């Protein structure tokens, strides 16, 4: 390497106690640094809600289905375009809202935790989209057919999962736990009132899908407008779900064979005083809405072969002109989806090799 330094005048040797004291000092400094790191990464705090622990709760409730998303694992890939009419361009500087077409990859799914759930297992459907703008920025959004979320915080959401966890003996949730949870969480009442009337739809294409969380649109001058958005279907005629296990994918393929399926993207502008940070609360009363354009879906692919499989529909992957609100669920979704994505991408080789073993909830 380099010439060693010539001998320099040595300081008088340290006494043994002095040497030990100095070594102990060094040890202490290293220990404090390592302890600070362990504190920050959550090792010292088993109660902390971390992304990994959120995903653990899903795996506990639903079992581990290698290679699949840890939530909404049963779904189908779709593709098409968003045809913007330019009406929202004054609200957001995002390219997607300028007049013109933006290519879209999407995924329609069943909001349960098991890839083998029957399609009627939940009276809900979900729609996730990835818009890719000409400038390479993307807008990803995961929407649900419910108008409001049951709870407003990540901790309450995890507690809800725990309250509905199957008992290992019976395979069913402890009947006492969900009522106790909902008694302690009055914020879930709007969701409960809605879900009472909700029925599993026979088709993905007749459903309305809602952002549920609020976002902020930012225009070219920096003006900020909180919004929620919805995809409102052109297709009508919500027929009751057939008495079968799997019908949604077949229905979708048939509908697409007959022609593209369309939804309007409706932005609902928050009024002053609307809760921006609480997805469990509806925005009541009159609201200005803007129809930003039409989502046109013209093809579908089974998810194991489709382009949507390896997309993490992280709701905080946003283009310039759309920002997340301070809704704590948005940050939690982003963090937990990343943990789910990390686990499932390490398992993709198991998706094809393993025959579909149908473990039903």
């Amino acid at each position, binding site marked *: 390497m380099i*010439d*060693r330094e010539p001998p320099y005048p040595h300081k008088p040797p340290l006494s043994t106690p002095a040497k030990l004291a*100095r070594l102990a000092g060094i040890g202490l400094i290293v220990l404090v640094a390592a302890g600070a790191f362990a504190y920050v990464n959550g090792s010292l705090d088993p109660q902390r809600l*971390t992304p990994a622990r959120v995903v653990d709760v899903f795996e506990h409730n639903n079992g581990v289905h290698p290679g699949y998303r840890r939530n909404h694992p049963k779904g189908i890939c779709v593709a098409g375009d968003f045809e913007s009419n330019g009406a929202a361009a004054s609200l957001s500087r995002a390219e997607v809202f300028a007049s013109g077409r933006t290519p879209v990859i999407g995924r329609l799914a069943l909001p349960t935790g098991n890839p083998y759930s029957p399609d009627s297992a939940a009276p809900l459907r979900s729609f996730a989209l990835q818009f890719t703008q000409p400038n390479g920025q993307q807008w990803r959004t995961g929407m649900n057919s419910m108008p409001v979320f049951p709870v407003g915080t990540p901790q309450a959401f995890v507690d809800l999962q725990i309250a509905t966890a199957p008992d290992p003996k019976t395979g069913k949730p402890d009947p006492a736990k969900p009522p106790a949870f909902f008694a302690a969480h009055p914020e879930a009442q709007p969701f409960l009132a809605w879900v009472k009337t909700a029925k599993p739809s026979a088709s993905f294409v007749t459903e309305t899908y809602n952002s549920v969380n609020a976002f902020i649109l930012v225009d070219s001058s920096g003006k900020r407008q909180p919004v929620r958005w919805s995809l409102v279907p052109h297709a009508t005629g919500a027929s009751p779900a057939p008495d079968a296990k799997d019908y949604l994918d077949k229905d979708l393929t048939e509908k697409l064979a007959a022609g593209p399926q369309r939804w309007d993207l409706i932005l609902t502008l928050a009024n002053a005083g609307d809760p921006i940070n609480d997805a469990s609360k509806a925005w009541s009363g009159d609201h200005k809405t803007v129809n930003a354009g039409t989502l046109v879906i013209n093809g579908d692919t089974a998810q194991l072969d489709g382009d949507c499989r390896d997309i993490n529909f992280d709701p905080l992957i*946003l283009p310039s002109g759309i920002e997340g609100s301070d809704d704590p669920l948005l940050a939690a979704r982003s963090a937990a989806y990343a943990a789910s994505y990390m686990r*499932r*991408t390490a398992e993709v080789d198991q998706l094809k090799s393993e025959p579909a073993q149908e473990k039903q909830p």
Partner: protein
Amino acid sequence: MSTPVKHFAPLARLLHWLMALMVIAMLFIGAGMVASVSQRHEWLLNLHKPLGIAILLLVIVRIIVRLNTRTPPLPVDLPAVQALAAKLSHYVLYGLMLAMPLIGWAMISAAGDPVMLGSSVRLPSIVAADAQTFAVLRRAHEYLAYLFFLTILTHLAAALFHGWVRRDEVLDSMLRGKSGDSKR
């Protein structure tokens, strides 16, 4: 041959301490963000990415500076095994300073995510989107971060050992400038 220098060049020392601060901050930011579901997760992530690219640019400058300035030699009486450990750990540190930002960048690319540094600056993808590539890079990023932190702790302990126990000039060569040289 000219007499060996006793201290690192001022620019080398500036880069060392600036990057020490940035890298340690980066490791804590990374550890904190993957352990959080709160808004802190997003806030730290938005800090982590531009800081990582800044470290990548600085380490390139630093390698150029290192190759073009004179480095003070280790004490002659340092046991060979310690001299070897010193040499190897510095290769590890330089390697990780270079590799970690590149792996982070490649990992976001492999996920098919736009590589955003802030709300409107986008870097190009450096690898094709592929789930298995992402999985490998994501784990490498995590394990190498732990290796990085352990190497820094060892580096810190060794520096203090030189300064407080051996009381040679190794720690001083990075702490101080020419004052020691001028006294001779």
